[in-house]
């Protein structure tokens, strides 16, 4: 008997796969929030739903997980009067998600500690675009940053346009001398309205939008979207397609981890690592281009399977690329490990405490560098990972150094996974036809940054509602916490070690 089945009482909604969705009362909704606060359940996401059919009552959905067993469920609460009990009131990780639901749907979390808009920066012609979608009021109050009080404090506003070639967002630092007292993020600058564009779209168009939610995780998003559609329609991709998907997913992880390890060291002014890791990243992207016809492998994983097979000589090219990359990378790890001046910057910097990682169910290397032993590939063991041999590296220091080492160990695991996939690559078709029908599906797929959640409701092969939750939603707030007490000059280093997505978050 798990905590999930203990707590959940409600009417099971049909056609939701592979995990159940239950329609619950406000009392059960509150009880679930209490379980988060007590640390017995993990929050995976909260999202609004007004549905494509005008008759449908607005509602909020919440994906929850019992971490030890990997049991997942979705609970849904109808918001007849446009409100629902705030989860953020007792469980802070929900706060931004609820603020976003309010800005997009107009649904109010009753008792919420923070009701400032999120994603809506006051530049749209409409308000509540996924809900009432009415003309935006002209007399909106200015956005107020949280107050900071104390002697001799000063503020540093940064962004949305940053100094490097990175995505836009606003950071408001309050510092006492060199030391950061508070960082407050304001995001939403790259909000493109992807979920609105997906509503009523064909599966094909929605898949393309999903692939462009966060370009560095395009493979992970495509697989998550495809798996959600397949769950909704109760079909499976053929074994060969599942292997090719995993191959691309591990390629994406390698390319990003190589890039990140180099870029983090570069932010500590150790540019030789950046140059060397850049070569490794490029070699992976070139191999991806040769094998799958696109450097970032965009639009290659599609609902039903994959769009292209591995190029004829692809397996050999991949083996050669990996052999050389593994050899070069080993030398670079040694270089990192033996450079005290570099370690001086990364060790002890930007610590995410293990209790924070647990509370936020922190995805990816952010969680795993702070003791959270979760990897969707392992815990949920979706194919083909159920048949592959790999370990999930976990560390507890929670600093920049730990986030680097988790990546290094994951690179080693990915290289081993790719070799196993190539050895066990089954023959057969690369896609199954996706017939017709309706249904609801949920998928959780481990991207390089962490688990990407995709939820979809299909009505007659059209997307009635699709929600994509980037892992960054549960990592950005931890960056605010981790940077406190560090010096301003260490922010780029910390930020890069998180490497949160702006586009995936802003959607």
């Amino acid at each position, binding site marked *: 008997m798990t905590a999930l089945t203990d707590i959940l009482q409600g009417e099971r909604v049909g056609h939701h796969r592979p995990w159940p969705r239950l329609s619950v009362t406000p009392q059960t909704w509150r009880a679930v929030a209490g379980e988060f606060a007590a640390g017995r359940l993990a929050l995976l996401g909260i999202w609004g739903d007004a549905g494509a059919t005008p008759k449908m009552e607005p509602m909020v959905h919440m994906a929850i997980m019992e971490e030890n067993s990997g049991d997942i469920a979705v609970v849904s609460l109808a918001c007849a009067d446009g409100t629902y009990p705030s989860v953020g009131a007792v469980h802070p990780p929900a706060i931004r998600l609820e603020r976003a639901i309010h800005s997009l749907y107009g649904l109010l979390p009753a008792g919420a500690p923070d009701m400032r808009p999120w994603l809506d920066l006051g530049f749209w012609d409409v308000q509540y675009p996924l809900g009432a979608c009415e003309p935006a009021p002209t007399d909106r109050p200015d956005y107020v940053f949280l107050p900071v009080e104390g002697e001799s404090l000063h503020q540093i506003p940064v962004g949305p346009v940053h100094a490097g070639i990175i995505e836009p967002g606003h950071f408001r630092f309050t510092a006492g001398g060199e030391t950061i007292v508070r960082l407050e993020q304001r995001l939403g600058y790259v909000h493109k309205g992807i979920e609105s564009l997906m509503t009523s779209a064909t599966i094909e168009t929605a898949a393309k939008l999903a692939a462009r939610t966060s370009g560095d995780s395009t493979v992970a998003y495509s697989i998550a979207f495809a798996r959600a559609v397949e769950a909704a329609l109760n079909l499976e991709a053929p074994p060969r397609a599942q292997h090719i998907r995993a191959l691309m997913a591990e390629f994406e992880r390698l390319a990003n981890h190589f890039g990140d390890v180099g870029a983090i060291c570069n932010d500590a002014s150790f540019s030789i690592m950046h140059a060397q890791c850049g070569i490794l990243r490029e070699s992976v992207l070139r191999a991806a281009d040769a094998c799958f016809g696109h450097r970032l492998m965009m639009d290659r994983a599609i609902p039903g399977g994959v769009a292209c097979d591995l190029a004829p000589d692809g397996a050999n090219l991949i083996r050669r690329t990996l052999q050389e990359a593994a050899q070069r990378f080993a030398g670079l790890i040694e270089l990192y490990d033996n*450079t005290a001046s570099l370690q001086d910057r990364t060790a002890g910097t930007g610590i995410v405490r293990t209790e924070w990682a647990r509370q936020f169910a922190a995805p990816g290397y952010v969680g795993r560098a702070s003791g959270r032993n979760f990897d969707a590939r392992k815990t949920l063991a979706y194919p083909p990972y159920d048949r592959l041999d790999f370990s999930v590296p976990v560390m507890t220091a929670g600093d920049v150094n730990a986030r680097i080492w988790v990546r290094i160990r994951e690179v080693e695991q990915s290289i081993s996974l790719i070799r196993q996939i190539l050895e066990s690559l089954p023959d057969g078709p690369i896609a199954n036809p996706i017939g017709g029908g309706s249904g609801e599906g949920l998928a959780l797929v481990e991207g390089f940054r962490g688990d990407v959640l995709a939820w979809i409701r299909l009505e007659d092969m059209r997307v009635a509602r699709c929600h994509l939750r980037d892992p960054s939603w549960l990592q950005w707030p931890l960056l605010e916490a981790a940077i406190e007490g560090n010096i301003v000059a260490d922010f780029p280093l910390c930020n890069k070690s998180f490497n949160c997505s702006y586009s995936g978050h802003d959607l």
Partner: protein
Amino acid sequence: MRRTLLESLTHGPLTETAPSPGDAALAELSASLERTARRRLGRSLAIREVDAGSCNGCELEIHALNNAFYDLERFGLRFVASPRHADVLLVTGPVTKNMREALERTYLATPDPKWVVALGDCAFDGGIFSGSYAVTGGVSRVVPVDLHIRGCPPSPVEILKGLIALLDMQTVKRP
């Protein structure tokens, strides 16, 4: 570290031969570049990158231009941290409404003469994001664009072709 450095010295450079400028890019540019400005700037351009709502795919490929294979700086092209230091704004994304003002202000902060390069399919006309309440629908709706580099995302070689075309305008006769 010594070993890594020595290896770099003994192995030949990874940097590859430059691609020739793209024909389409040359045609588009010949209309927009002033000869005098070209003379003044010579063969060196400072680029300020502005992400105006991209999925980050274009940024990844722009980053790649700095790696050893493409080595952007050998062409006199370099990325700068401020629009005040820039000759070229390299803009990606469909220009979200939330980024429109920031893009306009970045454009105004860039000294004349300046050029705007719109990079990627969604920077061209909004691409797949067209029609959303949250996007304006392409860079040229917000600031004047001198060159479009298409692709989703364009490969580093395609980006290089476009940027080299910007530099090579001295040799092209105006129509």
